[in-house]
């Protein structure tokens, strides 16, 4: 082992893995917390939907598109002053979370909008006919009916976040991506590179598997 992984400091790998998981967990929770209501709003204000508001929809949609089309590495840099105001630093795990959230919440919002559009219109209409309010339709019909799609969207978002956390490593966020760049790339320590890449791969695989299982369990079609 020592021969093959001479440069690998396992304690450091452990710390970096933990940092990655914290960044991932924190930004995933925040992205869902922001993206879900945003996606619901996008859906509801859309054409021929319950709260059709074409101006509101156009504005929300534009903002989402701008944030989504911005390359993440640029967003990381542009966000630095805001991040400092928000969490006091632009470095470390804490500093990485705001740009990660701003990068992925709009992405998740779009996935939420699409998942809600998959809900049968007839079911929404039947709920209206039963006297359901818009609020009751959102919580009692739209979200439960779209749950498999929402979970699938959250899985895709989580996986996108894994690669974003690796990129955030470049501007000093720490984590596995940071290790890969600092040791694997800048110091040609291929073994460190291999270990971090394998760990990231395993993480992505686990997320996908977990997501798929959840979707399968919730699907009733």
């Amino acid at each position, binding site marked *: 082992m020592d021969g093959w992984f001479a440069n690998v400091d396992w304690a450091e790998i452990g710390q970096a893995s933990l940092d990655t998981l914290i960044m991932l967990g924190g930004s995933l929770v925040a992205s869902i917390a922001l993206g879900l209501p945003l996606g619901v709003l996008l859906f509801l204000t859309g054409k021929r939907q319950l709260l059709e508001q074409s101006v509101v929809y156009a504005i929300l949609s534009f903002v989402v598109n701008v944030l989504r089309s911005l390359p993440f590495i640029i967003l990381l840099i542009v966000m630095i002053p805001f991040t400092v105001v928000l969490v006091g630093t632009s470095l470390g795990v804490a500093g990485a979370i705001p740009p990660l959230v701003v990068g992925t919440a709009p992405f998740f919002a779009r996935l939420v909008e699409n998942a809600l559009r998959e809900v*049968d219109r*007839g*079911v929404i*209409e*039947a*709920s*209206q*006919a*039963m*006297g*359901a*309010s818009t609020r*009751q339709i959102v919580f*009692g*019909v739209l979200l*439960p*009916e779209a*749950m498999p799609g929402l979970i699938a969207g959250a899985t895709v978002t989580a996986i996108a976040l894994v690669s974003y956390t690796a990129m955030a490593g470049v501007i000093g966020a720490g984590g596995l991506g940071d290790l890969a760049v600092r040791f694997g790339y800048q110091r040609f320590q291929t073994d460190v590179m291999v270990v971090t890449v394998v760990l990231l791969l395993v993480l992505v695989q686990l997320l996908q598997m977990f997501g798929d299982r959840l979707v399968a369990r*919730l699907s*009733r*079609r």
Partner: protein
Amino acid sequence: MIEFQGVYKDYAGTRALHPLDLSIERGEVFGVIGRSGAGKSTLLRSINRIERPSGGRVRVGGADVTALDDEGLRTLRRRIGMIFQHFNLLASKTVAQNVAFPLRLAGQPRAAIAARVRELLERVGIAAHADKYPAQLSGGQKQRVGIARALASAPEVLLCDEATSALDPETTASVLNLLGELNRELKLTIVLITHEMDVIRRVCDRVAVLDAGHLVESGSVADVFLHPRHETTRRFVLEAEHVDDRERRADLARAHGRVVRLTFRGEATYAPLLGRVARASGVDYNILAGRIDRIKDTPYGQLTIALSGGDVETALRAFADAGVHVEEVA
């Protein structure tokens, strides 16, 4: 119970429903028949304002539906059940949860909901499937869930939007029977729309015919079905009888003598009238077409016959005196 006054509907400049007046009585089964796109759904959905009419007034039990605010509308909708062609059940909820849904919306206590759901599932004959998901049910079972759900809040009115159009004939018959039972036992007012005259014939008391957004004919099912006046109605009736219009005309053209259509209703249907009249008047008769069936619970017969020889006028009078409707066929 339900009243339309000058109700019309425009979609982006095109008129889907032309101004119409219609009155549906409490406790009756009222059918609306029309081709696809005739405006049936638009008409039906204006009753619970899922679709807001462009003009005119809809009243349900005296209340002006067109003038209600959001809260008033939700209250009204809880008094009106609705079922659909494609059932529109919540796929993520079990049968029992689906039926419980309107009660939960109304904020009823859990225990009361559970008891009511059990009672409703028994009523429509699917208690055994309470914990299944809709995807595990057949079409007929799904529609029964839909009916139980629509009945949950004990509505006075049930709206049926092509409720049997996705079902096979046997299942259609059993669902229609159920609707008939509910109408009789719960005094439920039912408004159903369909493109099949057979559905109208089996359960409706009165019918309205929609053609390209126009109300072209309405009346008791027996009157409309046995003596259709509008061309569209006539074609629906022929379809229900599985008769090809052109073949029938050719057959009639070949007949000798006076061709008449006799319509028997109720007990007259079973009286041995034809032979008696023929013997008394000395006419010969030749049966060209015939049918005996039921409209809801009333039997009827319709015979097209050619009369020749003897005293045809006397024979026709004898039929009329026996309560048979006599109609010359050109």
